[in-house]
């Protein structure tokens, strides 16, 4: 046995582990902390035990946010294989509350600003012009049994409450998960769909979703104010950009009024019904041209299988609410519902 060489190898093994831990510890202590919105599921890794699988909003990047070489990858008509695992950089815009929003994805490292580095995921989804990215922060390891509890919480007492992850970023884009927290509000969506018409044989086509009931609940231990008219229809970005556009996007936003304000005590909920046959819940098909591009009520889109939407609670920014009573109690985050298809499917 060559003792010196063996000692050197043993020290190198310890050194590799110390470097791995030290690098992450340094980023966790000194990096810029941003908050990312997630939707968890709970798998199990035989080598590392239970973990909560974190799927970020920015995990699927639409074509409109792709830059430089990434756009060319999307245009490549071959399968995604040549681009798997390629290094990419996601630039982020961080708001006053620390929430980060994706503003672009490039294969070139940004010169500055806040960004996180990732890799093109193995399950690339290019057919609809979006790309799936893995940032190396998709797992939150927990003690055995805790992942199931978290998932049960998400389905039960914390139904509709988004989980946010605090992530520390180093200047090179390396991300380290620091922890997670639940938002104070939860949004639960229940769709309404009439049964199929049975007067004909075979039964006629079943109508699509005609409306939805939304329940906003205060899950925190303090009162929270909400704006009762701040719901909007958005495309489900996890399915790509989509070609339907809500008519409300183009409408001017009305000024905030105290009558819109509602104070929710801890555990209290606010219930609202949306009628999708009404014109304010219409969408236009951006794939159509000219006269064909007329608004269609959401309830009449039963055959649009490629459409996927969410209802989002998006109150006005804090600057617009300063004149309102108890303005400090208003929660200003965004709260998307589960995704649904006008033909009846709900994620």
């Amino acid at each position: 046995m060559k003792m010196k060489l063996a000692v050197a190898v043993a020290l190198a093994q310890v050194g590799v582990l110390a470097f791995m831990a030290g690098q992450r510890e340094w980023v966790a202590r000194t990096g810029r902390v941003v908050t990312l919105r997630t939707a968890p599921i709970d798998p199990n890794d035989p080598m590392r035990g239970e973990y909560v699988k974190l799927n970020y909003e920015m995990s699927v990047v639409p074509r409109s946010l792709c830059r430089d070489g990434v756009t060319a990858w999307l245009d490549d008509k071959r399968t995604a294989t040549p681009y798997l695992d390629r290094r990419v950089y996601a630039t982020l815009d961080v708001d006053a509350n620390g929430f980060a929003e994706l503003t672009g994805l490039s294969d070139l490292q940004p010169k500055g600003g806040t960004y996180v580095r990732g890799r093109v995921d193995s399950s690339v989804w290019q057919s609809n012009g979006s790309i799936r990215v893995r940032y190396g922060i998709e797992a939150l390891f927990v003690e055995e049994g805790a992942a199931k509890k978290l998932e049960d919480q998400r389905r039960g007492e914390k139904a509709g409450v988004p989980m946010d992850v605090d992530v520390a970023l180093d200047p090179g884009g390396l991300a380290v998960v620091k922890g997670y927290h639940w938002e104070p509000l939860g949004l639960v969506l229940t769709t309404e769909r009439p049964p199929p018409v049975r007067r004909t044989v075979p039964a006629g086509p079943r109508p699509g979703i005609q409306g939805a009931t939304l329940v906003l609940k205060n899950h925190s231990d303090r009162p929270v104010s909400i704006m009762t008219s701040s719901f909007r229809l958005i495309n489900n970005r996890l399915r790509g950009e989509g070609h339907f556009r809500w008519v409300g996007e183009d409408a001017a936003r009305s000024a905030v009024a105290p009558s819109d304000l509602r104070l929710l005590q801890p555990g209290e909920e606010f219930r609202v019904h949306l009628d999708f046959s009404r014109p304010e819940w219409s969408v236009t098909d951006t794939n159509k041209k000219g006269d064909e591009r007329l608004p269609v009520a959401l309830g009449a889109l039963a055959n649009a299988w490629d459409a996927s939407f969410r209802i989002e609670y998006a109150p006005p920014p804090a600057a617009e609410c300063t004149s309102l009573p108890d303005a400090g109690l208003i929660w200003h985050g965004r709260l998307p519902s589960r995704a649904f298809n006008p033909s009846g499917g709900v994620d």
Partner: protein
Amino acid sequence: MSKRTRWLFSEIDRWISGGVISREQASSIRALYEEPPGAVSWGLVVFSSIGAAIVGLGIILLFAYNWHAIPKFGKLALILGAVAAAHAGGILAGQREGWRRQLSEALCVLGTMVFGAGIWLVAQVYNIDEHFPAGFLIWGLGALAMAWSIRSVPQAIVATILLTVWDGSELFKFQTSMNWALVLVGFGVGALALRLRSAVLTAFVLASLTLITIFHGSFMGGSYVAWVDMYALSVLLVAAGCLLGDRATTEGQRGVMTFFGCAGFLVCSYIRSFPFGDDMMSRPRLETIQMDRWTVWLGSGYRWLLLAAAIALFIALTVRRVRAGRALATIGDLIYPIALIYSEFSWESIFGAQRRIQGPPYGYDGQYTGNFIAFNLVCLAVAVTWMVRGCRFGNLRQTVLGSLVLAVVIMARFHDLPGSLATRGLVFVALGAVLFAEGFYYRKLRAREQEDPR
């Protein structure tokens, strides 16, 4: 003590009591085969190393529980301390004599296993969900470095398994072709296996290289490239085994190489001995391969390197045997390079696709080329060579293996032969007659040997 030595020592006692040799002569013979005092007990090394590996796996699972009661730095201190302690214990024990020295190997294996556990523990503590095959690569390199530093077969086996897992996970999970895996296993571990003259390690290296070759071949160009790569590797191993044949010190390694070479060669030839064999072997078109050109060229380079090396080794072997006056011994072995050259360069192989003939030939309802006839002949040639050689040199194992290959090929053709039961029956009668004749030939040669031992 080896099985043969144990047998020899027990026989010596019998020879003394029978008056065949004197006690002094017996002592002289025993002295020739006595093992050195510091010799390692392989039983202890193997079992303690397996035990250490299992303890290491247990530690991985224990850490996987992820106790929140243990603070982050407590977990890190535990794992770093465990790696350092296991290696320090192993290295110090290696400097001592007796059982402690034998324990050294196991402690170092434990250290490497805990090192691997540490990679995943750090990932767990810091919620790292990055490119996971990199963890196997780092772990495998750590094991390989330790294997070289303490010249350890168990460490090298751990490294071989980890590097194979690394390659497989890169390929299957991320569709990334890792040509470095061939270099690391072939040269990194293979060179150590040659240096240590370890047949067990050689077997692991060859099993790993076989898997990696099939993985890469399939990935680069489907079944055809996998088949050609495997065929060339098999022929290379047969040649290497023959070249090592004269050295008694590498007898175990020669056996392993010959086993992997002959088994690979026969399996590959057998696959192509079916009329539909060519359908499974469509040549890839470069423009359809979903990879960058550099990776494709490296993959092609590996294939041509194997081909060239296999043929070069056979040329070297033939030259050596001709110089030694054993030209006749080469004739049987020439089947391997000839079949390899045929598979790559024959008219049927290159233009077979354009020369397909509509079936049903011999019960096969489809198009076929003449290749399957050639590969049937290759299988039969190997079988006959083994049978003749086995009989001539009194090698019963080779004789039986040759007969088995012959029987398997004939049985496989049962379904391909013309529908007449009479024809099939005649073929089986002929096979039985050949095997009978072989038995008589073997017995006759043995009897002649006993009459004239020269």
